[in-house]
């Protein structure tokens, strides 16, 4: 076989590979794209030409004005942001502290405690919902964001501790020993030396913690379904249930929920993949 034959074969193989990848990319993205473009159309435009881009004739933002007027989307966004950010900060702080203690200090029951804290990776916290609701009622926290934060922190800790412990094992011994020789206290070693070192892993853990919380329907539904404490996911669910026949409003509310996540994802996707491929998940 001559070289030109090989090259031609390579080229045709590349065409097939890219055709497969492009097809699947289209399958993954087109439904999202379809919803977003139709959110910017008049009702007529949505039904007459669902696949066309909005043009001068069909462009309209009536759906968005309706959604913003009839429901409290700004508030739902605020609720989701608050719950997600507060949870991430608490999970990252508590999980890195625990992971540091588990990976650094020899104490009786170290392995047992690590296993105990790992149970939650495999067992879904939802199965405890009956008792969680009782607990939240007893604490007087029904319809509060605090209830959601407490549950989400418990939900996020196991995987965060697991990933961070793996990561902390890789921190060079010399660094810690040098600090100890200089008489630096244990707290200061953690906060001044270790925390800055684990920043790349922290970013990965933050993304893994954030996505399920932002997207969750179950706990908002049972713990904080009203009183203006709905998260965006529950807010959209309730709104669409109410305006199911108003296509403009439904499409606009979906787009409002999709667009911020897409922007965040495009910003953080590199971090997410890097975390995965650098051995965070084995």
């Amino acid at each position: 076989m001559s070289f030109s034959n090989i090259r031609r074969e390579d080229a045709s193989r590349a065409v097939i590979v890219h055709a497969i990848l492009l097809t699947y990319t289209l399958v993954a993205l087109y439904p999202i794209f379809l919803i977003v473009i139709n959110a910017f159309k008049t009702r007529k435009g949505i039904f007459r030409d669902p696949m066309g881009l909005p043009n001068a004739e069909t462009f309209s933002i009536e759906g968005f004005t309706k959604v913003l007027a009839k429901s409290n989307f700004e508030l739902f966004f605020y609720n989701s942001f608050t719950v997600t950010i507060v949870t991430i900060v608490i999970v990252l702080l508590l999980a890195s502290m625990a992971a540091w203690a588990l990976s650094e200090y020899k104490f009786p029951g170290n392995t047992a405690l690590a296993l105990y804290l790992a149970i939650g990776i495999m067992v879904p916290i939802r199965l405890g919902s009956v008792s969680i609701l009782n607990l939240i009622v007893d604490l007087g926290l029904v319809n509060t964001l605090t209830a959601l934060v407490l549950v989400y922190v418990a939900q996020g800790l196991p995987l965060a501790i697991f990933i961070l412990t793996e990561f902390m094992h890789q921190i060079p011994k010399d660094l810690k020993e040098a600090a100890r020789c200089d008489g630096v206290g244990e707290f200061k070693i953690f906060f001044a030396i270790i925390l800055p070192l684990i920043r790349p892993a922290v970013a990965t853990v933050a993304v893994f913690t954030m996505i399920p919380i932002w997207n969750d329907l179950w706990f908002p539904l049972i713990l904080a379904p009203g009183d203006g404490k709905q998260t965006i996911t529950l807010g959209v669910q309730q709104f669409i249930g109410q305006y199911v026949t108003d296509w403009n409003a439904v499409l606009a509310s979906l787009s409002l929920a999709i667009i911020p996540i897409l922007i965040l994802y495009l910003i953080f996707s590199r971090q997410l993949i890097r975390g995965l491929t650098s051995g965070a998940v084995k």
Partner: protein
Amino acid sequence: MAHSGPMTDWRKAKLPVIAFLAPATIIYTLFMIYPLLDSIRLSFYATPSGGEAAFVGLDNYRTILADPDWASVFWNSFWNNMKFFAVHMLVQNPIGIALAGILSLPQLRFRNTYRTMMIMPTMLSVVIVGFIWQLILSPVWGVGADLLDIVGLKSLFGPWLGKEASALITLSFISVWQWVGIPLMLIYAALLAIPDDLVDAAVVDGATHFEVFIHIKLPLVLPTVAMVSILTFVGNFNAFDLIYAVKGALAGPNFSTDIMGTLFYRTFFGYQLQLGNPHLGATVASLMFLIILGGVLFYLFAIQRRLARYQM
């Protein structure tokens, strides 16, 4: 991964060690472990109307598993859940593995762009994904039929989500569409970790990329495939949001899309004329716990151990 293990004796730093571990352990125990155990305890109690909760042994389990009204509902949701899981195993994971294999081909251009785009649906809320597909498949809008028309299959289009025979399968495929990103990401990461020299030797011997993938790479990432499978199992038997968003708590038509998660919700909170019952709800949750535990133990002891031996 080989670790050197913890290095520092804690007796030199008792206070810091306790301070580092206590907050996480307390919140986790209080809001995760205690509710899980307490739910199991509650499943052994019942509250007669107007009375105090009393211990009833396995009565609730007998009701759910053997009472004619409850048992048919429970087993219906169980088998629906098995079908839901089967579609994920047979469609989602093979597609994820194939795409990961293609993406890890050497000298592939735009690999990062493809990967970023393909994973996008995984980032969206299940609720949003449910509504997106509900609109696209709606016969009122008709865009689903138009899309099928492009590939010449318009005649196949029907109100899939509304028919008893096709609703569950349709919802399973919607879920597959969303979650393909998980096997894709995890298996792609595992494929990247394979040392080049293992592959190079085969390439020099004239093996095609496909042969290299099937005979060398795939066997090496089997532990990840097994992990993806158990993650799929746990996720599927804990699913709720998609069915609830598209079909409501009644999981219609005629309970044909009812899975364990929606049954748990209805039993716990009630619906229409049936009152919610926390004790029966806790019983359903405990049964889900047993099913998930069974799957996880099977993975840990039957699959992972065997794979570990195979790898040596």
